[in-house]
């Protein structure tokens, strides 16, 4: 195992600092929203975690294509790393959203396009992990994983369009807002700062975790190789 790179140590420190700053911005700097109260603060990290979730799935689809073209093992390790991290963050995003929805929409859950699509996405990538677990041959596992990651990513917009044809109540805070959406609000300056800084922080956090996970994946591949060699 290679020693931990110096840049990774620096990135770890930076991530920690950013994270602390983001927490301070959200809880101290950003003002209290009038109509929703404290729960509105959930929104900052809810969007940030959801963003990281989608980012990871996108990365997995891209490296999936790269794997299918080039067949290099590193792309497979990257794909697994991205999906694993994204699954965790997306899960957090769904739960946080649900907690926000309880006082605002008066329900924990509603079958709105975004919520439903998010759940299906989570299931797709859980299936991805199960698929990998069921295959022993490393080369085939990588190939099938890449195919499924790309397939899953392509099906997400289709799912969203389908469900979109039914009504939505999810607020669109950034960009054009649906007038029917409940719980939408406009962000003031400090809110915007906290919001975009949270997005930035979680992106950095993703890169940091991704790097760690990638190193772990390489280690795991090495262990597996040795194991096969010894048992052969």
């Amino acid at each position, binding site marked *: 195992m290679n020693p931990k790179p110096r840049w990774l140590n620096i990135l770890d420190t930076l991530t920690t600092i950013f994270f602390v700053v983001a927490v301070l911005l959200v809880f101290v700097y950003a003002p209290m929203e009038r109509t929703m109260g404290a729960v509105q603060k959930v929104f900052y990290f809810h969007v940030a975690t959801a963003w990281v979730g989608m980012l990871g799935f996108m990365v997995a689809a891209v490296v999936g294509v790269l794997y299918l073209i080039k067949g290099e093992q590193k792309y497979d390790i990257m794909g697994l790393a991205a999906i694993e991290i994204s699954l965790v963050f997306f899960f957090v995003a769904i739960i946080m959203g649900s907690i926000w929805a309880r006082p605002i929409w008066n329900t924990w859950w509603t079958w709105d396009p975004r919520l439903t699509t998010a759940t299906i996405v989570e299931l797709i990538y859980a*299936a991805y992990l199960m698929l990998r677990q069921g*295959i022993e041959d490393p080369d085939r596992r990588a190939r099938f994983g890449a195919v499924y990651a790309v397939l899953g990513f392509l099906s997400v917009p289709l799912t969203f369009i389908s469900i979109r044809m039914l009504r939505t109540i999810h607020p669109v805070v950034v960009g054009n807002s649906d007038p029917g959406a409940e719980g939408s609000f406009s962000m003031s300056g400090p809110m915007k700062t906290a919001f975009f800084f949270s997005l930035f922080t979680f992106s950095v956090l993703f890169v940091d975790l991704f790097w760690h996970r990638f190193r772990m994946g390489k280690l795991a591949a090495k262990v597996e190789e040795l194991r096969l060699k010894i048992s052969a």
Partner: protein
Amino acid sequence: MKNFRNFIRALTAVVRKDMAAEWRSRELFTAMLVFALLVILIFNFALELDARARASITSGVLWVTFAFAGTLGLNRSMAIEKDRGCLDGLLLAPVDRSAIYFGKAISNLVFMFVVEIVVLPVYSVLYNINLVNPQLLLVIFLGSIGYVAVGTLLSTMAVQARTRDILLPILLFPLVVPVLIAAVKASGGILQDFAWEEIQGWVNLLIVYDVIFIAIAFMFFDFVVEE
């Protein structure tokens, strides 16, 4: 042109082989049909399908039935190939891999459609609701195409895994959600006598999904059977 003729010949050979094998054993068709009827029976108890509820939920019941029976057929049809070594034989044959994919997909589609054709009149009689309707048949046909297009690709992957029997539905269902939604909505609209304009959108969507899914599965099949 010659390539295309070879392609068609390979494709029909695969389909003909599947049909002949099925004609002799009838195990796939019987299993899918009996399973489908059982699902409908269970829904009867579970949902209290009275006359008023029927019109609005029939399409949902039908599609759940087709989806479940479909996975059974997809799994079995690929498992047969794998276990008897037919898949390896097919792959060794000097033909385009996509011909094998389309051949298997067409066979699966035929099995599924035959089951659906039998289920519809039975359902009509049992629940006193007319399901034999050309528009509904069209929607069911389109929905089955999308379902089988992804299903054939994924079942090829699933049979090569250790956990093959439980894997296919887990892999398949989250991906075919868009097809199922469009199919359920379109069939529901037809059964509730909506104007065609209201159903049109869902049917168009279904056609778009079919094209997309066939194209994707066609592109990826090579990677799934590579050795």
